[in-house]
């Protein structure tokens, strides 16, 4: 599977993080979709990405709730979620909401790419 067919969905309320992370993943050949607000669940359903990078604080919306909704929905439950936060307790939070992985901000490029590669939904599992 070519990387440009792999869709990564980034949900983060910070424009700088959305912009910089999108540019990096775009450079690495991924197809990137972003969502800065609470419309994440609907947007994920619309685009059906291969992985969701999900922040916790989304300006009035809690990323934990979004993760739980995505995992409770038959259509979206197989989409891997990687929690994406500056909170150092992110490992525990990711486990609580049944997310597949987590990345602590600020992140290093190898760490970001390795985590995506590890959890991204493969063609066979779609």
């Amino acid at each position, binding site marked *: 599977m070519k990387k440009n067919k792999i869709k990564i969905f980034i949900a983060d309320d*910070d424009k*700088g*993080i959305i*912009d*910089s*992370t999108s*540019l*990096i993943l775009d*450079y690495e050949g991924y197809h990137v979709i972003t969502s800065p607000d609470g419309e994440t669940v609907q947007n994920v359903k619309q685009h059906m990405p291969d992985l969701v990078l999900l922040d916790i604080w989304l300006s009035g919306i809690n990323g934990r709730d979004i993760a739980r909704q995505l995992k409770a929905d038959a259509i979206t439950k197989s989409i891997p979620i990687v929690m994406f936060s*500056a*909170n*150092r*307790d992110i*490992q*525990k939070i990711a486990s609580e909401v049944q997310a597949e992985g987590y990345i602590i*901000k*600020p*992140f*290093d*490029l190898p760490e970001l790419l390795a985590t995506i590669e590890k959890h991204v939904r493969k063609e066979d599992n779609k």
Partner: protein
Amino acid sequence: MTMKRKKKIQRKYIQDDSRSAVLTEGLGHYTQESTEKLFIPEKRSGVAPKWHRYKSTLKSKDEFLEFASHELKTPVTSIKAYITLMELYASKDSHEQASSLLPYIKRVDSQVNKLTTIINDLLDVTKVQSGGLEFNFEKFIIDEVVDEVIDTMQLTTVRHLITKRGQSTTYVYGDKERTSQVLINLLSNAIKYSPRADKIHINITKGLNSVSVEVQDFGMGIAKENQQKVFERFFRVDGKYKETFPGLGLGLYISSEIMKRQKGKLFVESEEGRGAIFCIELPLYEEE
């Protein structure tokens, strides 16, 4: 209590509350919760309200620091990501000028990493005090953590060669990430406080009930009277080296608290002028 006295105390609290509101402006629901606690009914002795106010102020300060540390990390994440992009483009660009920028980009990245460590320390110190430091206990092999930490820290020094001696493939029980954080702190200190030495040794020993990891430097050492004080919050180097080393004096305090929470130990052996050995001990994993 007379009405006159009661009104006087209430007025004082309201004044304090207004100062607190200005101080914590922008904290949203945190402010409301914290300031409300200033209005706990006072007792005749006057001791209880003061204590509540003190606790409330501490809670408010800790929450503010936690919130501020989290907020600081958001722009740092973007800066680091943009640096990564610059590095990617500069390394692929065939123009000599672009590739000549690479060493400077790496230096900016290194400075951002230092900033991240400071922010993390501030966040951790507030959590240590409030008892909110989270741990994920599991069994792990400490050799693997030591190897990862050496790989990371060797990149931060060109002067020192970090060498591992001994090994233990036995499982210990603790938090792998937090143990890694402690070892990074000890190695950072070893590098920082031995600026003229060219080696650092990591010695791993398996004991009867624990595994110990020593970080040995060959630097300035620590005077006997300061060997316990180095684990205190905000302790800074004293004597002839006073105000010659940067830092907040939080790393060893946080490391010491982390080791206590893991039922482990952190201690130091040193002779001034002849280097120091910081040793951590973690309990062995016991099958249930």
